[in-house]
């Protein structure tokens, strides 16, 4: 048994993604939407060209909150954001209008902001050109004429931000029926409006799909939406430690205009050109050699296996003892079962968000979340498996003079082993699925192509993550069947 454990640990260590042990490098982060990826790649290549060391890309980490937390905690060094977002969503100071005001406020958090990159990417509302034509819609004010029955799809961030939907509706006296508003992934809302499932969506003014989907952007005639100038935001420590890298980034001041940004977004979204290539073209440089699909999938597999493997080890080493405690002590048992069930009800994205302040970004919060999720099936099945043992066997064991330890090892665990193993199997398969979300906090794995594919609405890219994940789940299922042959006593196996 000890030898098996040692072998497992060694294998696990071998699978650990190299960057876990690698020397410190500059980490570039990004939000999970096309423009974020493009700007992130531009930043990464600019820093590499400055000669100040290797760059780790943690692109597509999720929403503003996650990426900003990552910056504050030092998990990433720099990413691109927008002045409006910084003032409204992060500093919670909508009164801060000037670049300097925002910069001063950020400096108090030990963060540094660059000059604007040159384009303004504000929120905007859009409808189908044909829809606008028949109803004579030009500005947001015009919407009030058609507001009853208007079906909208808005991104989560737009719905929840102070300067998002609620403020806008108030400012324009718009009254959309709540049941007609769908919250969805930003990239999917284009699909929804293309399919005619909704009439109105929010988007970014540099969105590449405006043209492709034949949308009309409604004029913000009351000037409600704040200005969203793109900037770099970095940790002060990074700007001091890597002055040339930071100088190279700030040197881009004013160099990306709106047209350029829309073009780059369009290349990614519509022509499916890789982000690295787009960035290289913009910088007038050779695109860094992109990883082959095979080595890419191999690396993702290692990351994914590492995530799932650790979660699995944790669920076994902690879950089974917790299940035993739950059986032994009734009150504590109920507490344990309720607590692990509660964890399960926290949506995975929310849990990841809570964990970032504690663990930063990358593998650690993802591992913590997976460990917590994989706990319930193992605890519950250990508990149920033991509780469903015929009590006569336990009494007989004591009547034969077996010690508590012997009863546990010779009777309880073997008899409960089919149920416990089923719990571990469930935990593993669920972990393989949930681990795809780990990409949102920069942990990599099969989720990385899924997240970037989603934001690009690029099904082939999604599949390079989704298919291996499904295969891994199938293989895990098969391995557990084999493990069952080794672990479950033959007398129980043949009965079922």
């Amino acid at each position: 048994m000890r030898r098996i454990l040692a072998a497992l640990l060694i294998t696990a260590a071998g699978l650990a993604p190299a960057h876990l042990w690698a020397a410190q490098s500059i980490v570039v982060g990004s939000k999970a939407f096309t423009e974020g990826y493009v700007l992130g790649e531009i930043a990464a290549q600019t820093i590499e060209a400055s000669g100040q060391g290797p760059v780790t890309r943690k692109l597509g980490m999720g929403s503003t909150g996650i990426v900003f937390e990552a910056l504050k905690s030092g998990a990433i060094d720099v990413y691109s954001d927008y002045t409006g977002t910084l003032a409204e969503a992060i500093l919670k100071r909508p009164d801060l209008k000037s670049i300097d005001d925002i910069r001063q406020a950020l400096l108090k958090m030990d963060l540094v902001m660059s000059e604007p990159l040159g384009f303004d990417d504000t929120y905007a509302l859009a409808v189908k050109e044909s829809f606008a034509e028949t109803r004579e819609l030009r500005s947001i004010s015009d919407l009030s004429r058609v507001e009853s029955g208007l079906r909208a799809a808005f991104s989560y961030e737009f719905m929840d931000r102070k300067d998002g939907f609620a403020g806008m509706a108030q400012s324009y006296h718009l009254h959309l029926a709540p049941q007609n508003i769908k919250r969805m992934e930003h990239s999917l809302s284009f699909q929804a409006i293309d399919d005619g499932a909704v009439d109105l969506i929010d988007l970014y003014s540099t969105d590449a799909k405006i043209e492709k989907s034949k949308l009309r952007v409604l004029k913000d005639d009351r000037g409600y939406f704040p200005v969203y100038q793109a900037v770099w935001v970095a940790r002060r420590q990074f700007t001091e430690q890597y002055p040339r890298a930071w100088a190279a980034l700030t040197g881009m001041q004013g160099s990306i205009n709106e047209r350029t940004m829309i073009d780059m977004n369009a290349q990614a979204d519509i022509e499916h050109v890789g982000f690295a290539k787009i960035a290289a073209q913009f910088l007038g440089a050779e695109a860094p050699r992109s990883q082959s699909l095979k080595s890419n999938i191999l690396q993702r597999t290692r990351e994914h296996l590492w995530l799932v493997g650790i979660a699995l080890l944790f669920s076994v080493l902690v879950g089974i003892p917790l299940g035993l405690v739950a059986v032994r002590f009734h009150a504590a048992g109920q507490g344990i079962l309720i607590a692990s069930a509660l964890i399960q009800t926290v949506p995975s994205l929310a849990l990841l968000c809570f964990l970032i302040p504690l663990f930063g970004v990358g593998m650690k919060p993802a591992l913590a979340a997976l460990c917590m999720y994989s706990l319930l099936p193992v605890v519950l099945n250990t508990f149920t498996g033991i509780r469903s043992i015929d009590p006569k066997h336990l009494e007989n064991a004591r009547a034969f003079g077996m010690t508590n330890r012997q009863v546990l090892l010779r009777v309880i665990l073997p008899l409960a082993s089919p149920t416990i193993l089923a719990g571990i199997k469930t935990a593993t398969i669920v972990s393989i699925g949930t681990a795809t979300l780990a990409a949102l906090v920069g942990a990599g794995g099969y989720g990385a192509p899924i997240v970037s594919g989603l934001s690009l609405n690029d099904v082939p890219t999604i599949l390079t993550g989704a298919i291996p994940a499904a295969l891994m789940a199938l293989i895990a299922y098969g391995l557990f069947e084999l493990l069952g042959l080794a672990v479950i006593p033959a007398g129980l196996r043949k009965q079922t």
Partner: protein
Amino acid sequence: MLALQNIHKTFEGRLVLTDVNLTIPKGATHALIGSSGSGKTTLLRITLGLIPLDKGYVKINDQALSSFSPIEWADRIGYVPQEGGLFPHISAFQNVSLMATLRGWKRAKIGARVEELRKLVDLDAALLGRFPFELSGGQQQRVAIMRAAMMDPEVLLLDEPMAALDPLIRRSLQQELKSIFQRLGKTVLLVTHDLGEAVYLAEQITLLHEGKVVQSGTYGELLRQPNDPFVTAFINAQRTLPDAAEVA
């Protein structure tokens, strides 16, 4: 010799055993009989040392249960649970040898003892490799008796050994049990609700009712000199089938 002396037991404030006395001489077979709720299962669990008693003694060869550790006591009483009570996840052989293995017996010693017992209960050697669910009720009983006798205890305690068997197998196993008991030469306490079984297997019978011993003696004594109307009622109640003369 097994002796139960002045045993009292209350359970949730209710007196379930009152001044129970029972002595079984070495090598004798004794049946403890009573209907359900009579207290016989509680008495059995007390004898096994699974639950404490409020007052009285359980003694083997004049040494009280309280002077032994649970493990030492278990080595002195071989227990055959209802329906054999074999552990379903291990083979018949592993069931028989489990306690010897846990006590660190050498493999050869275990093999020799199992073989000796196998011959004694007349079980086909091939059956020892099987799992309980692959054995018939009668075969499971024999394996359970081997397990109970494995550590060479002073006393064998059997709980309703025939209850789950069909009548024909019952009859043949009853005969075998009797000879097995004779060959083993153990002091045997048999707990049952079945008078037929008690009469067939045991020399002495103790009838328990509402936690008290109503009468102890041979079947003939119970039949001819009942201590209490309950004894007669109990005996008559178990003679269920009518005679040929009574059937039209």
